[in-house]
């Protein structure tokens, strides 16, 4: 059923006329052209599609778009402000916390969600918050360091 859905996307009011049960991931990637959010598994198992909805990290491959009605959605494209990288983005680059880069947007958004709730996480808290985000290139060690670095800076 076509519905009108209003929400804020990366700080901007957004209105969609759309089938409400379509998944946010594909709406972002196709209708809205925001391809930074990635498809990796489609079943809540990899975290490549992680975005923030009302300050919570969410798997957008599982989320019907009508559930973001009235909410605040942030994607990887929304982190950079006026050409200035978010500390997480900066630290990921600085620590080389990426190789192929395909998991990176999901990693950063999931870490962003963690730091919103817990700005000074311990290493164990980082590991448990990040554990369901998969990285096949094996950047885990550097990702942890990058998150710690960003947390220290924020």
């Amino acid at each position, binding site marked *: 059923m076509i519905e009108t859905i209003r929400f804020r996307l990366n700080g901007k009011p957004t209105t969609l006329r759309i089938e409400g049960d379509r998944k946010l991931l594909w709406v972002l990637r196709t209708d809205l052209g925001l391809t930074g959010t990635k498809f990796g598994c489609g079943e809540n198992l990899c975290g490549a599609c992680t975005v923030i909805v009302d300050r919570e990290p969410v798997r957008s491959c599982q989320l019907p778009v009508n559930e973001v009605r009235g909410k605040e959605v942030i994607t990887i494209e929304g982190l950079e402000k006026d050409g200035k990288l978010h500390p997480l983005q900066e630290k990921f680059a600085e620590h080389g916390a990426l190789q*192929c880069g*395909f998991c*990176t*947007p999901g990693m950063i958004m999931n870490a962003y969600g963690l730091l919103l709730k817990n700005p000074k996480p311990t290493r164990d808290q980082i*590991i448990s918050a990040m554990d369901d985000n998969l990285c096949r290139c094996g950047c885990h060690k550097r990702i942890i360091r990058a998150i710690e670095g960003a947390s220290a800076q924020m």
Partner: protein
Amino acid sequence: MKQRQYKVMDQHRPGNTLSLGRRDFIKLVGGGIVVLFHAGDTAFLEAQGRGGYPTDFNAYLRIGEDGRVTVYTGKVELGQDVVTSLAQMAADELDVSLESIDMVMGDTDLCPYDMGTFGSMSIRFFGPALRSAAAEARATLVQLAAARLSTPADRLSVEDGVVFAASDKSRRVTYGQLAKGRKITRTLEGKAATKPVSRFAVMGKPAKRRDARLKVTGRAQYAGDIRLPGMLYARILRPPAHGATAKQIDTSGAEKIPGVTVVREEDLVAVLHTDPEAAEKALETIKTEFDLPKAAVDEETVFDYLVKAAPPAQETERKGDLAQGEKTAADVFEARYVNGYGAHATIETHTAAAKVEGGRVTVWTSTQTPFPNRQEVAQALGFAPENVHIITPFVGGGFGGKSSSGRQAVEAARLAKAVGKPVQVCWSRAEEFFYDTFRPAAVVTIKSGIDSAARICLWDYRVYFAGSRSAEQFYDVANNLIRVYGQWRGETTKAHPFGVGPWRAPGANINVFARESQIDIMAAKAKADPLEFRLNNTSDKRMRSVLQAVADRFGWKKAPAPSGRGYGIACAIDAGTYVAQIAEASVDKSSGSAKIKRIVCAQEMGIVINPEGAQMQIEGCITMGLGYTLAEDVRFKGGQILTKNFDDYDVPRFSWLPEIETILVKNDELTPQGGGEPAIVPVGAAVANAIFDATGARLFRMPMTPERVRQSIRSI
């Protein structure tokens, strides 16, 4: 060095048939100074069975009129960061900053033919040629500057792309000014010397990834991020098993859905829509009946099956006499080691977008092998290869999984041609597991022996379906025979019920798991410390130095295994690089679950171009290695792949992560060796040996799942 002169290229010589003609190149690259070069050890590549490599040139670099340097190569960036390390080489030899180098990679219209990116070869084989080409470009520029500044070339210096008189810095000219209005093309003659290590300014220094900013902002484009006007997303009907044949396919349901386009060709049935989810729903309406072949094997029976199905042996090494070795032996050991099928499981699934326009097709695809893909697409569409343009955007991981076939590129191109609109094909995770070319299941049997002085005197090694990579003997064994029954590629792979192919360091992981486990078994029987046993049995200097380095850093204290401490050591040679690792494990004896607490790795890889990149690769290898070692096992029944997603294929996670320490052992005497694979190779054996040291239980099968570890502990 051979004395050879620059040779201005003969513009009328026909270009090689597999790439653009030379004249097209000259037109394409425009003005400036161009050096054409050939990279790669042709003999090595031919030996790998990948002929057709042009002997002429397969890469070039250009100094543009703006002074920027562009390197054109068919290699691709998969995450291994060659985009940085190759640029470092060019920058250093040219005396320009790293920032002034642009890399154009994996584009079949812009780059000359290259077979692909695999086998830790980019730096090893491509690097030296690139450096020579950059050195020649610099020499050419200095000669031009000599004329311009009326100063002999040997009195000129170069800094950051500016040539100046050593005596008077104000007499200067930039590379850009020198290239302006010129059209000079050279083929690499190897006349200009490359820099000795002592003069490295950019190479050998850690360099940050050059693609990081694009990747942390989500702006890096992968094949699935290509958006073309009017593009349709395709979902393709797949058989339930390899070898299944369709009896009936009814697409009438899908045809009735508004907006859905159905394509039915003999072997390609697809539904397309502007919304990928709508295409997915349409796919679900297709009714099918398939005939399934009888499943001959599963993950338990496959090893015996493979040994029976094996082709005749190829001897790769023979020394002394096995019978003599057995006579000398005080103890003889026989064991069989096995490993199931492994998936590449890159987070990016195989994806391609294609458009057909004016008799040409352009395909953006996630691949390690753009040029072979061009051939496949050309053949499938009946186009001439020059009318196929393959563009490789960023690739979301490869590990060998995106080098075997261009299936998704062919699918996208065929569908785009069929519907007359751009089409994107993005495989689901289940399709990815179904069409992955797995690391083949493999078997190694070893009969070995030690004499009364704990010296290895017998080594009778047989490997089935994994080839001999990293099986080469570096222990001093008087009676040594290595036999290979089938490779991980080529004809013999037909024995497998589905596709197999290269997987990061193909074949090496099982070979090293087997050898280094066997070495530990012998050391334990001799009540010898595992490190000391190895050192006593090899005189290979490079191996001794990495063993010593890793032991020093780890703080290795001598003790025969099992010592209860959970320390395991393993070493290997791979892609010209020497590597030794020590793992520390703790094992929960009741559940069998092994936690790897620490892995120290010493690697000697000749000259290190980018220490930062090298370390990143080592860490990646170790982390990924824990997957094949502890958990990853594809489940299947004949041609049916039961593993469909990550809930049934456990790849390493944050919570698995050990402390990882890396040491790069210096060896500036040797040209750079492989870096993307070697450190994954010893992980299985280091962990198996650590589990043995912790528990006294010896594991002969990977992955060493908790269940298998528990059983092994019980059977002590």
